[in-house]
């Protein structure tokens, strides 16, 4: 009675197709910036509105730009990892405080510790748009020539740092 096997056959075909569909990775967002010069910015500092911070301050050395906000749960998750990475002193971490309130951001850094050498305050999110930020947290690695060489979306961990960021940094050091 072959006809009774038809339904199970159809199901198998369907599941197989879904399996292929699942394998296709649609979620990773490419950064159009990779390999290109980091967009220039000049913003007030989060701790002192009278001073500005600009990417020119870091010309000639690699740095990390970390996009965060106090409303962002993922940022809270990765905060300890950032503190640990900052403590290693391999590279300066620049904060980009995104669509946030200044007093909340200052409170956050006071209470949880400050991994950033300096934090820029991007209330309207203009700079974040230049950098193609989709959501927080996002972390960019900029090389000494001022090019974006890596982008990580989602909370950072020390493992991810060692696996994805550190090798790139070492290459940099070697080629220099």
């Amino acid at each position: 009675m072959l006809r009774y096997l038809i339904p199970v056959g159809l199901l198998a075909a369907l599941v197989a197709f879904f399996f292929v569909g699942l394998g296709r990775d649609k979620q990773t967002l490419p950064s159009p910036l990779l390999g290109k010069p980091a967009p220039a910015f000049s913003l007030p500092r989060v701790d002192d509105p009278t001073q500005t911070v600009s990417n020119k301050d870091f010309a000639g050395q690699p740095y990390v730009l970390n996009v965060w906000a106090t409303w962002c749960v993922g940022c809270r998750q990765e905060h300890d990892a950032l503190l640990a990475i900052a403590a290693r002193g391999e590279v300066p971490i620049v904060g980009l405080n995104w669509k946030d309130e200044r007093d909340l951001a200052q409170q956050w850094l006071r209470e949880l510790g400050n991994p950033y050498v300096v934090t820029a305050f991007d209330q309207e999110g203009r700079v974040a748009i230049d950098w193609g930020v989709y959501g927080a947290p996002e972390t960019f690695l900029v090389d000494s020539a001022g090019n974006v060489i890596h982008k990580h979306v989602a909370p950072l961990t020390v493992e991810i740092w060692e696996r994805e960021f550190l090798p790139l940094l070492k290459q940099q050091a070697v080629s220099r």
Partner: protein
Amino acid sequence: MSVELGHFALILAFCLTLPQAFFGLAGAVYRKPHWIALTRNAVVGHFVLTAVSFACLMHAFYVNDFSVLYVAQNSNSELPTIYRLAATWGAHEGSLLLWLLAQATWTLAVSIFSRSIPDVVTSRVLGVLGLISAGFALFILTTSSPFERLWPAAVDGRDLNPLLQDPGLIIHPPMQYIGYIGMSVPFAFAVAAMLEGKLDSVWARWVRPWTNVAWVFLTCGITLGSWWAYYELGWGGWWFWDAVENASFMPWLVGTALIHSLAVTEKRGLFKSWTLLLSITAFSLSVLGTFLVRSGVVESVHAFASDPGRGLFILTFLGLCAGSALGLYAWRAPLFRTNTGFAPVSRESFLLINNVLLVGATLLILLGTLYPMFLDALNLGKISVGPPYFDIAFLIPMLPMVVLLAPGMHAGWKKADFGRTKGLLLVLLAVSVVAGIALALVAYGWHSVMTVIGFSLAFWVGLSALVDPVSRLRKGHSLSAGVIGMSVAHFGLAVFVLGVATTQSYRQEMDLSLRPGQTAELSGFQFTMTKLSDVKGPNYEATEAEIRITRDGKEIAVLHPQKRIYRVQKNPMTEAGIDSGLTRHLLVSMGEPLGDGSWSLRLQYKPMVRFIWMGAFTMALGGLIAAFDRRYRKRVTADDAVAAADVKTV
């Protein structure tokens, strides 16, 4: 209560599904009454533990415990309490826990309300349900636990998605899940019947009320979802043929087919293997829907944050569940062949056509939903299938189905000679066609032949649904709940058809810019923007327009549509202003400021749109009434059932 307790309860709840499955299935095979009793105890335990687990999560939302990752991601201290509680099922993890709770509740209900069913059968059914619960519990525990801690705790939460901050959300998902998961009950009964190798009219009588109740919940869930999308998305659409909507609609269509096919199996002992196949398919499509929504394989505004790992789990679960059931079907279905015949014109034929058309519609929707994915999987390009396809593809099978519904309701079993009803039906048909044309011409103005067909069909189905109850009442016969339920549900369909035909034919909309003091006109109504103001909500700020609607100088309504910005997520939200009368809605939605003090607005006139939801809820009511027919509560033998079927007509 802490979430650790909730997590622990969930682990225990998972552990209890294993004895439930084992003793349920083995107890039936070895006929051990105390094993069966043990199964029932496991069911109760599983329910209690799942409920505790759910209560713990809800409590964490209630007390703003932002040290729980899930709470921090989906709530906020400024969120009103009722939404904080509803936020429990506002995202993937919590909604799955709600799903598991719904499953536990169904299982408990089967265990309690099965006195008319032999213990051995109940035991098998509970065993199968136990396996399903085990799968879902494991899914939550391994990929989607809502109980993870966040350390250090967040100061405040990320807030609930503004789209979900709405009374509709409080009830829509629970209804939907209860309906989805309710389809697991006929599924379990089907598997139990195949395991036992026995399926007769009595079996159908056991399954029918469960199927009806599950279908009622699914109907309400889908209807509430449509209503929610209508006013909360702010743009006045009531059905979008979105992949996720389709995912909920396909089990509904198959469930509807199942209800009708079960009627034949109960009354005539026919369509047995077909009924089994529908039972399996209805639940499999529910799981498929979950997969589509949560794996990210299809593009949809409703999609949950996707995760391929979760997708893989559900896919495996679907494969195991549906695969083993269909394998069992391939093996056992030949046992259930029957040789009883029926005349080409008979109740059986009508129901057969009903089933073929409903399943045909399901397949066409499935094709439209999955085709883009198939092409993509084969690297043949990216396409999407537009809503017009679904409109047509759905209409083609549904039109003949609705046409045949009226005679089908009055056809006798085995061989139908309509007798006196034939004349009456023809008279009703003539009256309906005239009324349809009259309504189109007089009330709204000519639109198209399809509109007239829609109106006439609505009248014909609505009127003929009343024939049976009216004639029986006049003869002084009592009405069974089954007959009332059927008539009410079909009447509801007529109301729905009327609503759809009118709204789709005569709706009007207009995008335009208005500044305070200016007036626009649509469908004879004058819309005047009287002022713009800023308002503050508990967790949002909004720009609010005041729109005064007049007709011939008489004031009809003053609407206050808003454009909200939620403080935490910064997402803008369109809150439409709706003036809802029984026979028409007027909608005003705000677009954006245009720079010179004016705003872009969308004005809409939607005649009879409310009938769409009223009709759907009426269908649900009919299903509910039919589920409470007295005969389902009697313990009957197979002989009684067949004898009864020969006497009764429904």
